[in-house]
């Protein structure tokens, strides 16, 4: 395989509340390759968004800080990069789209103003040139009537249209890497498919690398090349998408897959994983999933498992068992 575009190693991010620091991202490592979609899945509160914000250098300061690890991008480490240089990377080399398009655009400025401001931040072009670039970016995400939209304000656009604007903004400077944090979660089901389609089309056309954060396993199965499953701030299993879905090894991955409703095969109650993700201040010693795991051993309660590579897969479990049909 080619060398990775972005290499995250042992990334650890802590949040401070009332003087005590808690790890919300704990030693996360993954690689992103050109022209590839890496899916990052897990329940709410497992650290997916914090991982993405850490890569972008956008974690809320001073409440949170990166306590260790590195994010290697080309020959630079983004974690130790001065803020001034990091700003050059953001929006240009690596861009991000967020979950809620309704609140993600400044309500006081027109769409055209917001887009051209970011363009002119990174490229020394005239205002008309920047406007032409913005217009083209809006047309590429198939926003209807882009000329009119340029002079409109966010409140005049629907949620789906605003998310297209967000995508246009993220893609207009041709980034190497796009981080999409639950890009369709806040949208209507019918619009979700359209937005995802636009996003994928652009990713393929540009040969871009994409980190797709979602809790929707259906989306991941359909579009991702590789999948990393996060639990309690750590990656517990990582594998190519086919392998992960056909032969999940980690009990948490298995639980997630069983929890997907399958209308054709099953009747009766939906499978759930008992309990919930532990809050960062109450992560149990040993394997953090052990309290919810049906196959936990005594060792799982006492010893913290490492992420072990095995035949293209990375797994963090002492007692993996093949998935038995439910």
């Amino acid at each position, binding site marked *: 395989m080619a060398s990775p575009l972005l290499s995250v190693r042992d990334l650890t991010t802590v949040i401070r509340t009332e003087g005590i620091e808690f790890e919300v991202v704990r030693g996360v490592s993954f690689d992103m390759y050109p022209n590839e979609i890496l899916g990052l899945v897990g329940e709410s509160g497992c650290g997916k968004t914090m991982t993405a914000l850490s890569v972008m250098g956008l974690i809320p300061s001073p409440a949170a800080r990166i306590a260790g690890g590195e994010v290697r991008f080309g020959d630079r480490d983004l974690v130790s990069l001065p803020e001034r240089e990091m*700003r050059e990377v953001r929006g*240009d080399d690596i861009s991000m789209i967020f979950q809620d398009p309704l609140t993600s655009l400044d309500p006081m*400025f027109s769409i055209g103003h917001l887009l051209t401001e970011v363009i002119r931040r990174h490229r020394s072009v005239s205002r008309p040139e920047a406007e032409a670039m913005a217009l083209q970016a809006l047309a590429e995400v198939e926003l209807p009537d882009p000329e009119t939209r340029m002079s409109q*304000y966010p409140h005049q656009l629907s949620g789906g249209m605003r998310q297209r604007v967000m995508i246009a903004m993220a893609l207009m400077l041709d980034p190497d890497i796009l981080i999409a944090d639950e890009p369709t979660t806040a949208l209507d089901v019918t619009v979700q498919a359209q937005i995802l389609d636009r996003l994928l089309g652009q990713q393929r056309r540009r040969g871009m690398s994409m980190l797709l954060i979602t809790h929707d396993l259906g989306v991941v199965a359909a579009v991702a090349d590789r999948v990393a499953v996060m639990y309690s701030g750590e990656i517990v299993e990582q594998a190519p998408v086919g392998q992960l879905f056909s032969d999940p090894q980690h009990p948490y991955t298995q639980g997630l897959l069983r929890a997907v409703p399958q209308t054709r095969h099953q009747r009766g109650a939906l499978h759930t994983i008992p309990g919930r993700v532990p809050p960062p201040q109450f992560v149990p010693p040993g394997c953090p999933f052990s309290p919810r795991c049906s196959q936990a051993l005594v060792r799982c309660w006492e010893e913290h498992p490492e992420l072990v590579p095995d035949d293209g897969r990375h797994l963090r479990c002492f007692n993996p068992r093949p998935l038995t049909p439910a």
Partner: protein
Amino acid sequence: MRYLASRTVYMLVILAISSVAVFYAIRLSGGDATAARLPASATEADRETLREVLGLNDPIYQQYFTYMGRLLSGDLGNSLTNNALISKMVVEHGRNSIILGAAAFLLVFLVGVPLGMLASVRRNTLADQGIMSLSVAGMAVPNFWLALLSIWLFASVLRWLPSAGCCEPRQLILPAIVLAAEGTALTVRMTRSAMLENLDSDWVRTLRAGGLSESRVIGKHVFRNALIPIISLAGLRIGQIVGYALIVEVIFGWPGLGQVLVNAVLRRDYPVAQFFSLVLVVMVVLGNWLADLGYLAANPRLRKT
């Protein structure tokens, strides 16, 4: 457009109601108007004649319509005490009041907004706490006391500034600061909280993700959003300044509308008290209307839909 129309109608209704209220309140305040005009030795018959001439014996509603009729045709009448033309008094004292009021208004926003921004950017630091403590003091100290205190300190003890008078720039400094104190304190607090509220919004993250600098994000985008509540409450600040001008002008001997009004009320000079009260009401109402216009102009969500 509908917003603008409704605000304008609202303003006219307030003006009509307050003109009645001012008119009645002055008549109900008691006292004898003829005392302003006639010597103490005047007989009851003389006083009665004067009341008849001035129309003071007519029913109040009739007096109101007569008065409003004259007012609208441009006849403001004369003072009862010295027979001066009220129209002349308004121009002369109005100018002084506008100078003082405008100076205070500028202070409120040119000092209040930057201090509030500074406090929000330096949230929970010594600078923030210092600014916030000052603003609590600014709100808590009654302005008549602040006026006396500042005269004592800057005029009597330090001898830096004159204690009273009009109308040199040096004489404007103390009354303008005292008049602006409370509004500035409130504006600091409001600016700070509006800035902090907007700093937490999702779109701030989007702008940062686009690579914009902190100074751009805060100085342009967050500030632009924080400006909305600041503008919408500018009307209240105007009302405050007009109201406090009565006290401050008297203490500092600043010959403005407020000082004339206070003297007129004390001497039962009905025509003057009445008209000057109305002028203050008009200023407050007009100020609020202008603030509404500013709010409309600043908020794209109200502009087009």
